[in-house]
């Protein structure tokens, strides 16, 4: 029995394990070098931008760097009454530097976001400083408080203190239609300004129904593809893939031609007498348009994983089910369907994740009631240039997808996914 515990040596006396590792090291290095370009590419184009997005979305360093002395002296201030002379003095010295660098405007803008009314207050102080009206040998607190009555209001000093930390969750709260009020409590914005939450819900709803529609339409097609003889299935496959090879923009535009009020579909409805000519239904610039166009565009992503799974299911299984006494429905439901679940999982996950971040189609055919959260992100990227807000929403979308993936893993198991 002692031979079992004894270390096994190779013929030249080196322990076998070490020899084995040595022999395999070369292969490991080779394997790593093969994936290295892709790894590097992913780090540069994926990991790094996401990290950058994250820091941008919570970044609030600008003002921290503008008022370093003020925040330092504010550390000991309890925030209940007006701060001490020392705070006023350091604020003035910070402010003078800003005036020299002509950055006082940015400060006013940032503070105004925290509390309305800061713009005029800062402007007034700027004029006094510019004219050297403030004598630093005298009591600075008294002089500043004379510049504007709001400098005597403790709420404004509290607002300044709130901006001290270099990080903020304001963008994330804003995306949920909430903000941090004066008492440091999270509250909802007034009802008429709540727009983001509707968009989030609508995005989820559209993604969910598009997934359902894709599944309902894709399943029979995939089944047909997998069971038809080769020459027909190839043709059908081309039909499924043809939209894939057409530009997304072209496809969306063609849906616009079809769905508009004077469009082909409406014309057809009028001709067969389904609707009156003066009462044409609106099928575009609303959710209907988004549903129709997105379902068509995302259909291949459902069909392909389903097809690849169905292709591996032997037709003799259905036959066995029938010959054992199951009606065609029972044979399908008990034998065929359970075997396609990996494909259903993969297809649904793929379609849902693509749909949740869909942009071009809802932007073009969605109209006001059919736009999704991604359109809002694009709007902030391009129009308001509030990139940190866009980043925050983008990351929330990513987080949402990860949560769905996690849920899916809990319910179905990711091992069951089969893409081909």
């Amino acid at each position, binding site marked *: 029995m002692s031979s079992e515990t004894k270390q096994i040596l190779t013929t030249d006396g080196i322990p076998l394990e070490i020899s084995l590792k040595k022999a395999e090291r070369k292969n490991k290095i080779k394997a790593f070098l093969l994936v290295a370009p892709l790894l590097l590419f992913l780090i540069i184009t994926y990991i790094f931008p996401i990290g950058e997005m994250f820091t941008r979305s919570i970044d609030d360093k600008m003002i921290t760097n503008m008022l370093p002395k003020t925040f330092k002296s504010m550390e000991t201030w309890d925030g209940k009454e007006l701060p001490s002379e020392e705070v006023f003095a350091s604020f003035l010295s910070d402010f003078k530097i800003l005036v020299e660098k002509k950055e006082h405007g940015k400060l006013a803008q940032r503070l105004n976001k925290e509390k309305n009314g800061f713009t005029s207050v800062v402007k007034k102080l700027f004029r006094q400083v510019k004219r050297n009206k403030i004598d630093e040998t005298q009591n600075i607190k008294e002089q500043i408080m004379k510049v504007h009555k709001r400098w005597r209001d403790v709420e404004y000093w509290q607002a300044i203190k709130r901006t001290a930390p270099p990080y903020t969750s304001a963008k994330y709260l804003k995306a949920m239609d909430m903000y941090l009020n004066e008492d440091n409590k999270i509250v909802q914005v007034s009802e008429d300004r709540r727009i983001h939450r509707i968009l989030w819900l609508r995005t989820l709803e559209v993604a969910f129904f598009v997934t359902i529609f894709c599944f309902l339409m894709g399943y029979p097609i995939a089944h047909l593809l997998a069971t038809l003889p080769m020459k027909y299935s190839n043709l059908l496959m081309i039909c499924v893939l043809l939209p894939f090879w057409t530009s997304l923009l072209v496809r969306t535009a063609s849906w616009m031609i079809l769905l508009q009020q004077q469009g082909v579909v409406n014309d057809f409805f009028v001709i067969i007498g389904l609707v009156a000519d003066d009462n044409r239904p609106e099928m575009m610039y609303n959710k209907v348009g988004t549903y129709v166009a997105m379902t068509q565009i995302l259909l291949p992503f459902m069909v392909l994983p389903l097809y690849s799974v169905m292709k591996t299911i*032997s037709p*003799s*299984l259905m*036959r*066995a*089910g*029938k*010959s*054992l*006494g*199951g*009606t*065609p429905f*029972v*044979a399908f439901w*008990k*034998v065929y369907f*359970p*075997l396609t679940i990996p494909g259903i999982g993969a297809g649904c996950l793929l379609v849902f994740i693509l749909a949740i971040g869909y942009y071009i189609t809802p932007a073009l055919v969605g109209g006001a009631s059919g736009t999704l959260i991604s359109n809002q992100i694009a709007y902030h990227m391009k129009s308001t240039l509030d990139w940190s807000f866009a980043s925050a929403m983008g990351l929330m979308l990513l987080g949402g997808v990860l949560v769905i993936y996690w849920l899916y893993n809990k319910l179905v198991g990711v091992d069951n996914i089969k893409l081909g």
Partner: protein
Amino acid sequence: MSKNTEFVKFDKVDKSYDGKVLVVKDLNLNISEGEFITMLGPSGSGKTTCLMMLAGFETPTNGEIYLDSNPISNIPPHKRGIGMVFQNYALFPHMTVFENLAFPLRVRKIEKDEIEKKVDKALSMVSLSGFESRMPAQLSGGQQQRVAVARALVFDPAVVLMDEPLGALDKNLRESMQYEIKHIHENIGVTVVYVTHDQGEALTMSNRIAVFNDGKVQQLSSPDKLYEEPVNSFVAEFIGENNTFGGEVVDISKDVCKVKLNKGEILANPVSVESKGDKTTVSIRPERALINPKNKMDNNQIGKIEEVIYHGDHTRVRLDLLGNKEFILKVPNSSNELDLKLGNEIKIGWNSQDARALDPK
């Protein structure tokens, strides 16, 4: 109680897939109750098509199939009550062995206790008790095969169809499974229709064998008759080994005829030749031709040894005999006194009865 000799009946069945070629031509076949019948033939001979028509997955283009005197062409497969073992077993991969076996019982709405009893019985029949909770992928090929057999039998079908069920197994396992299936058939007396292209399998297991070729049954008879008395040269060629001489009948009487070959003449048994001048192929089984025969034989010839191949239990000797360079002899290795050397000339003899004059190739 006498057994129904027309339990399964193919009546003038034709089948074509494309409207141009008949895969099965005018098939008439009666299978009696409790019989083990094998459909044997090369691939593309129509045997599997026949099985699929019986199972209900293909419809006959013409003619009718009767099961216990009822026409079944319009009955869907799930109502026929025919068990089937598929070529690749077709076990449901997402169900345990128990669930696989319970499937045909559950769809028949049999009670739970009854199902458990029947599954137990079926599993013990194929000696797989204790494997209930395994998944098919956790079983070896042979075990999967047994589960498939048990599943086809568990609901007590009147007929069980087997479509090359042993094709994927290795040689040893295949042989032991042959005996096992044969014993199961003997024990429960179910009617079995078995499809294979392996003649060894067919000969070991069947009561009767239907040899298919070109969409037709060439011969339907018991294994021994099929081997000893093939009715045409296809069957002679397909079943077992076979030495052939092509020639022309020059003289014929009731049970012997003289056939003229390229070199020489031989006496043969006229099976499918009728008159002088008929072309014929004479077929002789290798074991029917003897070396240095002690008894008197009708045909005595001299052959030259071209090749000697050692096969373990016997030695195969290839001879050049009467112009046929592929004449094979099987010599049991127990008789060592023979001097089998390349180039030696040896005496060969056989009875005219064992040389069957069949249709020309």
